[in-house]
């Protein structure tokens, strides 16, 4: 039972179905034929007392109290497999789960403590890591190319680069940020960052069910972006890209945006002559769920990897739309304790074994969460001597002679 701030179950979940039906895609829930494809394909479905099919059933029975107070509410990692598989094309990940979580929060049912900390950090500091907003540019310390800080100067740039929380603050990801900065400069692209004014786009908190926090961040970011002069926004974080692409337009805050794999793949012909140094390795690529299953972009990351001399790309058994999630999305990054307790495993541990089974010596990723998740999992699985985890940017930068790690 999830810890409750309210003392009685009476009235919990009342009117949930009506509330769900009032969402833009909520009405689709009525099309559910209870086939169970969603629950059957959910990588954590077996660990859920109330997987998606049962949740819908309970909603229709107007009996949501047991669902809302069960650990299942906080088990979804936003992998979009249920959404993709649903024969009735019900958008379960972006509609059902946020609505259930939002209702749980509104009822005073407390999310796991680790998630609460992340949410509070986002609200107070604009980043999940609870770091000082004044240290947003810490990643650029020692950067050897010019940086346009749009929080200090007004400038028109081709690319407004939203660096993201992990790439700004987390030491392992800061390396990738500096390499991407060098890469854009090398490609002759004018780019700028928001420096101390940058805040999270609120991508995951919408899936946490924290709609109010998401709206607060949308309002702040919309105002901030509207004051900038740029052609496109580029993001390292696929969750943020998904937020900007899918959710922001619903708040009249649409901006042209690309995930970096799409942005670089569009410039592959310009990039190719710069990839001069061989990087001899066997690489398998992990499709992240937001750019992959949610937005259907599978080839750009592979095109980038195949362009690197010396790289041999091999596929995992589950790839593209069938790829197994790393378990970090939808709030999973801050729910490892809860999910391991109730699910008995971390998906990233399973995925790293799958990657190693290909014989690859590099697991390539394109999501800031995945570097730390998979590096952790490689240690847990005892595979750290057999496979290393590298962002695609790192491999490209090495081939361009711009890398920091070998």
């Amino acid at each position: 039972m999830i810890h409750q701030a309210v003392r009685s179950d009476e009235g919990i979940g009342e009117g949930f179905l009506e509330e769900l039906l009032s969402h833009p895609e909520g009405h689709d829930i009525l099309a559910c034929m209870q086939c169970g494809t969603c629950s059957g394909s959910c990588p954590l479905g077996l660990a859920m007392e109330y997987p998606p099919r049962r949740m819908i059933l309970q909603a229709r029975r107007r009996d949501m109290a047991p669902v809302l107070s069960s650990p299942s509410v906080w088990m979804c990692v936003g992998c979009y497999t249920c959404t993709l598989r649903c024969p009735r094309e019900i958008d379960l990940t972006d509609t059902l789960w946020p609505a259930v979580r939002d209702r749980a929060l509104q009822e005073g049912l407390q999310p796991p403590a680790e998630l609460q900390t992340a949410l509070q950090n986002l609200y107070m500091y604009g980043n999940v890591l609870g770091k000082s907003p004044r240290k947003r540019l810490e990643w650029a310390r020692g950067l050897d190319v010019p940086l346009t800080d749009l929080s200090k100067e007004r400038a028109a740039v081709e690319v407004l680069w939203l660096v993201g929380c992990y790439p700004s603050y987390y030491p392992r990801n800061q390396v990738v940020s500096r390499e991407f900065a060098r890469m854009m400069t090398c490609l002759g692209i004018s780019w700028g960052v928001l420096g101390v004014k940058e805040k999270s786009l609120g991508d995951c908190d919408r899936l946490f069910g924290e709609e109010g926090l998401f709206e607060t961040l949308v309002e702040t970011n919309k105002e901030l972006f509207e004051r900038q002069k740029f052609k496109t926004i580029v993001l390292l974080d696929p969750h943020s890209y998904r937020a900007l692409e899918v959710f922001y337009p619903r708040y009249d805050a649409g901006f042209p945006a690309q995930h970096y794999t799409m942005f670089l793949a569009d410039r592959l012909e310009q990039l190719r002559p710069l990839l001069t140094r061989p990087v001899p390795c066997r690489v398998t690529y992990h499709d992240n769920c937001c750019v992959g299953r949610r937005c259907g972009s599978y080839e750009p990351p592979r095109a980038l990897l195949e362009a690197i001399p010396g790289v041999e790309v091999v596929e995992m058994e589950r790839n593209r739309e069938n790829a197994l999630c790393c378990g970090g999305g939808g709030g999973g990054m801050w729910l490892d304790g809860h999910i391991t307790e109730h699910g008995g495993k971390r998906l990233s541990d399973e995925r790293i074994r799958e990657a190693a089974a290909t014989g690859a010596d590099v697991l390539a990723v394109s999501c800031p969460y995945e570097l730390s998740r998979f590096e952790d999992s490689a240690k847990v699985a005892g595979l750290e001597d057999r496979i290393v985890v590298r962002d695609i940017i790192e491999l490209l930068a090495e081939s361009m002679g711009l890398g920091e790690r070998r």
Partner: protein
Amino acid sequence: MKIAVVLRQVPDPIEPLELMPDEKALDYGEAGFLVNESDEHALEQALLLAEDGTAEVTVLAFDFGDVETTLFSAAAKGVDRILTIPWEEPFPPGTDVATALFADAIRSVRPDCILIGCQAHDELEGAFGPRLAVELELPYLGVVRGVRQTAKEMVLEAHKEYPGAAKARMSVQLPAVLGILAADQPPRYVPVSRIREAMKSAEFEELELESVPPSVAVSVARLSFPLRGDGARMLEGNEREVAEQIAEILVEKGVLT
């Protein structure tokens, strides 16, 4: 029962702390503030008591900096009344002044029970809780971990912890001041949508206090960051050998002669 909860804003340690040139105070120029952690527990405890019975919860805070964020959050959690004490400086008063002003404010509320956090990391002039109790001429029970309502309306049961897993249940005759270490459950998470609603509807009452803040009784001679040494020295050997080495070190440092 009427419960008053004091919420204090303390410097946020996520920002690097700097000292003023005279080293007698923090440089608050770049500092951010957040609600004192054990005060948050005091608020949670008050809300739990209110949910168990019919208590009315009033929150008091100095009006400076970003206190509204804290107070809107308290409103969203369901407190009944929010009182602010005018404060012109961009940083919180020391314990002396805070004690006098909060005591004045609390007298105007006439609560049966005052819940405060039992500690704050900026209490340079001594602990606030006992001094507030003295000022109000009320008993004080500190380092409390959980409070329950008893069958008698004006008697609470306070729980305390002691070394060796010992615990105590104490009957507290109200009125009294309780210094809360931890509430019966962690401070609740309140969704931001509720806070946004509170921003539209919550009302703060500004207190007009007649008393003049007293002169500061305790003065800070000098603040210092913790000194960094060269690291720990591990003492090897049996008990006697280690004891002899400790004695030698104490002599060497001038503690023993």
